């Protein structure tokens, strides 16, 4: 028996390594996050330092509409967008999973009410909801954007979570917990949720992608905490006029966002497959 136990731990590791999708995804994600974290230290110029004429070829990627160094702004502009996207996704997942699982577990009338209200909020396009609120306030705070992103994700996550949970709440191990008289909150947290890992992780990866797109889009539309600070999304907006003469000013932030979302999605897929395979 001890031999099989040993092989269980080693096989968990070897499974991780063999899951190439997961390894590649995790590597990309970690690299981009590292870049965003230590970027400001590596940047050859300051965030708002003018290094040459606007849209010129000075420096690796050239300069932007104000003559600031693109590479430096790229290295400065990651932290905030990633922070907002990750926090927004986490908030959206927590809210959405809660709504969905409670609806599925409560069932019947409660399920109907919760999910129909959910449908109403679903009818608003994500970006529109954010825009309506953001135009109302003078200077948006970072936490506001996080909350808006989270709230706009929640109904979408809720639909997926409910679907997954519906298949679980009718299983006998949930009935068994109920027959023992477990509290409802414990049935949800200890019995239902742990079995939702795989699909929820995949959903989280997708949501993170959307979050980044959303933050970038908001930045593009001019809604960011500090207009002077570098921000990948905003950089696309600022420099789009010169896309034909100075393409790197737009392409560089677009590419890094694309690479990051591919990385997170590969990772989420990999984790989902891994935890699925561990089952049987």
């Amino acid at each position, binding site marked *: 028996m001890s031999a099989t136990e040993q092989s269980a731990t080693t096989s968990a590791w070897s499974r991780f390594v063999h899951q190439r999708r997961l390894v590649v995804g995790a590597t990309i994600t970690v690299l981009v996050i590292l870049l965003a974290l230590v970027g400001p230290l590596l940047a050859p110029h300051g965030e708002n330092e003018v290094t040459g004429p606007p849209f010129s070829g000075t420096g690796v990627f050239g300069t932007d509409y104000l003559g600031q160094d693109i590479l430096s702004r790229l290295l400065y502009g990651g932290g905030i967008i990633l922070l907002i996207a990750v926090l927004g996704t986490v908030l959206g997942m927590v809210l959405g999973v809660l709504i969905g699982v409670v609806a599925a577990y409560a069932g019947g009338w409660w399920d109907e009410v919760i999910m129909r209200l959910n449908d109403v909020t679903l009818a608003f396009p994500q970006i529109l909801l954010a825009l309506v609120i953001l135009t109302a306030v003078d200077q948006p705070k970072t936490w506001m954007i996080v909350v808006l992103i989270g709230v706009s994700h929640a109904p979408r996550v809720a639909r997926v979570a409910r679907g997954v949970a519906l298949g679980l709440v009718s299983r*006998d191990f949930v009935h*068994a917990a109920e027959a*023992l*008289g477990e509290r409802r909150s414990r049935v949800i947290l200890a019995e239902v949720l742990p079995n939702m890992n795989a699909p929820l992780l995949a959903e989280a990866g997708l949501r993170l992608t959307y979050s980044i797109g959303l933050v970038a889009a908001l930045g593009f539309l001019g809604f960011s905490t500090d207009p002077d600070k570098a921000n990948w999304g905003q950089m696309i907006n600022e420099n789009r006029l010169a896309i034909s003469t100075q393409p790197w000013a737009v392409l560089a932030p677009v590419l890094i966002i694309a690479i990051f979302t591919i990385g997170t999605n590969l990772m989420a897929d990999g984790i989902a497959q891994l935890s699925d395979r561990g089952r*049987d």
Partner: protein
Amino acid sequence: MTTLDTTPPPEAAGGGITVADLRIGLTARPDVDVVDDIDLVLRPGEVVGLVGESGSGKTTVGTSLLGYTRAGAMIERGKVLFEDSDVLALPWQQVRRLRGEEIAYVPQDPASALNPSIRIGRQIVELMELRGLGTAESRLQGARDGLAEVGLPNDDEFLRRYAHQLSGGQVQRVALAMAFLPKPKVLVLDEPTTGLDVTTQGMVLQTMGELCRSHGVAALYVTHDLAVVANIADRVAVMYAGQVAEIGDRDTIFAHPSHPYTRALLDSIPHLRQARALSGIPGRTPAPGSRPGGCRFHDRCAFAVEACAEQEPELRERGPGHEVRCLRAGEIGDWDISLGTVPDADPQRAREVILDIADLGVSYGRTQVVFDVGFDVARAEVVALVGESGSGKTTISRCVGGLHKEWTGTIGFEGRPLGHGSRKRSAADRKRIQYIFQNPYLSLNPRLTVEQIVKRPMELFGIASGTEATDRVAELLEQVALGPAVMRYQTNRLSGGERQRVAIARALAAEPDLLVCDEITSALDVSVQGSIVALLDELRRTRGISMLFVTHNLALVRSIAARVQILSAGRVVESGPVADVMDNPREDYTQRLLANSPRID
């Protein structure tokens, strides 16, 4: 390999199919065999039962007749001779034609083999189109004839139904009809009656037997239940760990079983005529790759000697057509069917009623499914609820267990009325009545470890916590014959029988006075059922636990229960002490249940 000489090819040449020296291995590990040294002859008009526990390789042999192995396995050696050609050597186009047309297969779960969105009639006609049977006009009539042959209605109304509008037994017979339509010469049936109740099983088996004999079809019937085979097979092959352990005529196998494994399987089968102390086979069927050297059964065998661990036995002839793979085949004496019988439970015994059900009516929404049911259960007594599927037996047990709320009448526990759902009951009541589910693959949370699962009731009811609880978990696991080593496992590493033991340990952790057992052995091998029943009986005797035992297996009832309630369409039609009801059944319904029960006694 010796069999090849004793079973000359000419026998099969006139029809039927011959498997010769078959070995199927794993693609990933060429040194490991899934099945090995398989020689099997199916003669026309003959039903051969292929029997073994889960993991014995019986399904692998069954599908190899169609030239098929599941992914990850490959046929390494051997021949499947059918009409002068080797199925395994044919090009795939010809194999494709053979499958279904000459060699048909009926799967375990036919519901998933029928297309849910195509009407039954259309599906059968399509099959005939695919096989090029009949003309456009005659096909519909052909479909009707096929359905009539398996005893199904064949009017337009039935042909227009979808698979979900049929009962389990009807679906199984549609699958049989579809298998028979192309007039195959060989039929492979893979546990086609598992999951059906005895009445339906009886009908399906009878239909199958008649069709095989009248059409001269050679049939291989794969199952884990020797009792089923006893009623339909002409010859029986018992498989263990990828090899044929014993093969012979049905009467020889059941009268003079010579392999210790065959005997152990027979010992685990309950009888209808008399109660038995059932026994299981210790340990579990070894998986390919972890099978012991020498005789593959020696580590679980009661008759093993040292030589068994060293020498690999060959199939040796014991009598005409009777071959045994055992070194000691001649030395271990004769088997006695009445060995292990015990007196029936004494109906005169003093009874201290613990559970009292009166005027119970149960409904799902507007449909009432149980009417005016009343019975009681005494301390340290097992009461069985028996009936066909849909008779309401599980529904009643769910009401007692607090899993179903819509009922009227009273369920009294020690004189106090019980609340309608578990949330309406006191913690003490929830603790003292424990429910064990039918399917251990669904009733244990796959994300939790065995320790977490078994420990939870103790924490919840304040019985024990911390290291004391851990010690008790180890104790309980010892008691259900799993051992503390499985504590840190997740349940997906356990077999069905082991999972059900974990479920029993979880129920015992609450220190209950009443166990509600809902068909807890129906998803398990017969040998595993034997050991679980033995465990329950010991718990009843040592701890004085009462049980409400739901099952459709009357033979099992005889061995475990003291009293029985026979249910039909939501009503109790007959009840009383088990021996009385089963020896002198008054109702037609009870007699029919008894007549349809597979038996070896």
